[in-house]
């Protein structure tokens, strides 16, 4: 199999030398359709996700927003009988091309899941997992990376004294921030978040939201959410999906204050969904 063929995109995580202004297209979705067997779950979706901004996918359950999110790191590959038409371009390269190394893709497109899923290992080993996969062995390197990642996920102060304690001993909100730390440890460019706060209480949710606003300085974030206020609070762009179709996509302020479509307005004002 061909090694990494994804071209390097100039999105250095924290360097300011080559960084461009936020807002250049990083992910281009072009006429994407997805089928489960014969059922079409996504219909001809085109949208553009811009770098170092937060893009929110909203819509009622079953509208395809999570499915679309999982197209961006090819997690749908794991499901039998899924067929995809159209393209997802990241940094100008179609990630569905047969020569794309999906392992390399997933290192660059991290993911945080709805249900926090820390490994039944220590906090330290959770964060170090992805780094060890990439061959990082030296204790000092790992120590440094773990601290940086946990700090970036606003978790370091809470866990620095029990790094080698079990990750499952953390609270739900801490576990989810650990999962974020684990994802950013491998230095992705993009972080996909699939309803990351839907299982958390309001305080833990607000910490995650603060974190998202902090992370977007360095990462491009795509978040699926059921929570309209959350989308309004954290995102720059919002895409509204209904029945597998993209109904409307635009600046979050516009979607929530003067949507162009009746269906969008009905949904964001709580008339259905």
């Amino acid at each position, binding site marked *: 199999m061909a090694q990494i063929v994804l071209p390097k995109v100039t999105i250095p995580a924290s360097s300011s030398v080559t960084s461009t202004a936020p807002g250049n297209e990083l992910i281009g979705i072009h006429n994407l359709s997805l089928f489960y067997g014969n059922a079409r779950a996504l219909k001809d979706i085109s949208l553009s996700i811009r770098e170092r901004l937060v893009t929110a996918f909203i819509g009622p359950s079953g509208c395809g927003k999570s499915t679309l999110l999982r197209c961006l790191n090819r997690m749908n590959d794991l499901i039998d009988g899924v067929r995809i038409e159209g393209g997802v371009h990241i940094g100008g390269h179609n990630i569905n091309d047969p020569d794309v190394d999906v392992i390399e893709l997933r290192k660059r497109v991290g993911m945080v899941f709805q249900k926090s899923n820390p490994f*039944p290992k220590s906090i330290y080993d959770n964060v170090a997992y992805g780094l060890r996969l990439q061959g990082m062995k030296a204790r000092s390197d790992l120590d440094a990376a773990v601290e940086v990642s946990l700090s970036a996920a606003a978790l370091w102060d809470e866990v620095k004294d029990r790094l080698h304690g079990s990750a499952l001993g953390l609270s739900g909100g801490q576990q989810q921030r650990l999962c974020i730390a684990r994802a950013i440890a491998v230095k992705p460019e993009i972080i996909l978040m699939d309803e990351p706060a839907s299982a958390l209480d309001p305080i833990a949710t607000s910490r995650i939201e603060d974190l998202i606003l902090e992370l977007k300085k360095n990462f491009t974030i795509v978040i699926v959410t059921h929570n309209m206020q959350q989308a309004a609070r954290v995102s720059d762009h919002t895409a509204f999906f209904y029945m597998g179709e993209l109904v409307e996509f635009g600046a979050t302020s516009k979607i929530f204050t003067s949507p162009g479509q009746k269906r969008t307005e009905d949904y964001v004002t709580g008339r259905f969904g």
Partner: protein
Amino acid sequence: MKASLDELSRPSRHFRTVRFDFVSFFFTGLTGLATFLILAILAVILANILFNGLPGLSWRFVSTIPKKDFFDPATTGVLPMIIGTTFRVLVMTLFVIPVGVTTAVYLTEYAPASALVTRIIRAAVNNLAGVPSIVFGLFGLGFFINFLGRNLDALLHNPGPVWGQPALIWASLTLAVMTLPVVIVATEESLKAIPPGLREASLALGATKLETILKIVLPQALPGILTGGILAVSRAAGEVAPILFTGVAYYMASLPHRLNDQFMDLGYHVFVLSTQSPDIEKTRSILFATVVVLLLLTFTLNFVAVLIRSRVRKKLRSLA
């Protein structure tokens, strides 16, 4: 609404009945009786064995290699049988665990769940569990000894049969084939119990499927795998039929020390003592003593396996 609430709290309501519920009583009694019957049978068997067997048991008995005529209670012993049974079970474990676990990993992690091939493999595994053990014995004779062993001899230009004869290795392999379904099913169950979210988390971090299985899935499944091993050991330790044609010897003057040696076996020795004895009354004590040794050995092997499993569980829990 208010009226009905008042009604409910009216003091005249009472829920007591004077009728005796005969059906409930009858079925409760029946289930209890069935349970008691099982326990009673077990107790009678154990009491009988211990009562008849303990007098014949001594350190000399378990540490002596008997002479050709092993029917004399005063001089006989069962050391070669203890060694033989222990080794055939251990060697079996070395084969059945890796093969069973690999098969289970294939079935749960790799094979397409709904494909015809997968369903056929599953059905085959289940059917394997239902095959009578004597059939496994004949299979072992035909496949391992006559086919594998003899061809190995031909390949190595051995002057006489070295591998093409009953041996410890072939008996162990036959037992491994027999206990394979137990290990496969136990491992599959424990693999299925692992939350899919853990696999997804690993893959989303750029792990390959193999890395995910080795680093996340299998460590979590270890207690379940060991349960399969325990069940396999329990089943195999007392089995005689599969080793009848494949490795057990009526008598050997020395202990087995190579994989292609034949061996003596506790279960088979019980059969020999009870059918070949010239004086059944005289050998009764050593017959029962041999049964006690077989039971103790089975319990010990199980106990060691359970001990290992509980240590693994404790280790997982301290991390989890």
